[in-house]
């Protein structure tokens, strides 16, 4: 059973509280696309940014989420 996009967004916000998260399904009910904007990404490599998001999803990433197209960025005011 795959989580709903809203549940996926909530998981991210629990782990990265300031995150501006947008989650959509692009195919079926387990192919997600997500954009995460957070000041906590400042000074962090892209790989580490994505790993922070994957960590927030925990076991869901290994099981219920079949595919995740992910884009991370930092807020404009932090640049």
């Amino acid at each position, binding site marked *: 059973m795959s989580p709903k996009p809203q549940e996926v967004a909530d998981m991210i916000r629990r782990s990265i509280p300031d995150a501006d998260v947008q989650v959509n399904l692009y195919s079926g009910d387990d192919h997600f696309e997500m954009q995460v904007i957070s000041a906590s990404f400042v000074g962090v490599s892209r790989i580490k940014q994505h790993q922070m998001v994957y960590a927030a999803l925990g076991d869901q990433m290994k099981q219920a989420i079949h595919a995740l197209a992910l*884009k991370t960025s930092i807020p404009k005011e932090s640049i």
Partner: protein
Amino acid sequence: MSDSVTQQIDQVVKNNDVVLFMKGTPDFPQCGFSQRVSAILNAHEIPFAAVNVLLNNEVREGIKAYSDWPTIPQLYVKAEFVGGCDIVTEMHEAGELEELLAPLKKEG
């Protein structure tokens, strides 16, 4: 996961300047994400070693632990993990991939 699989992966990563762990092969990719990264590398005209993780489940799971990265494809350049499909695509569009690969092309 057995240590020998980790060692095998480590050897492949260190012995090849550009390695793509993917589902399927560059000629017959079996996943859209793997296909995209393979096509980007081809567009850069850079030779690369490809490992089809679908042929060996230990490698498929082992590479995820090796890089602490939950998805495939995974691109390695000069033994460094570069990223998966999203990051490689972003780097390609930003011109960063060209910068990364250019020195390897000169070496021939």
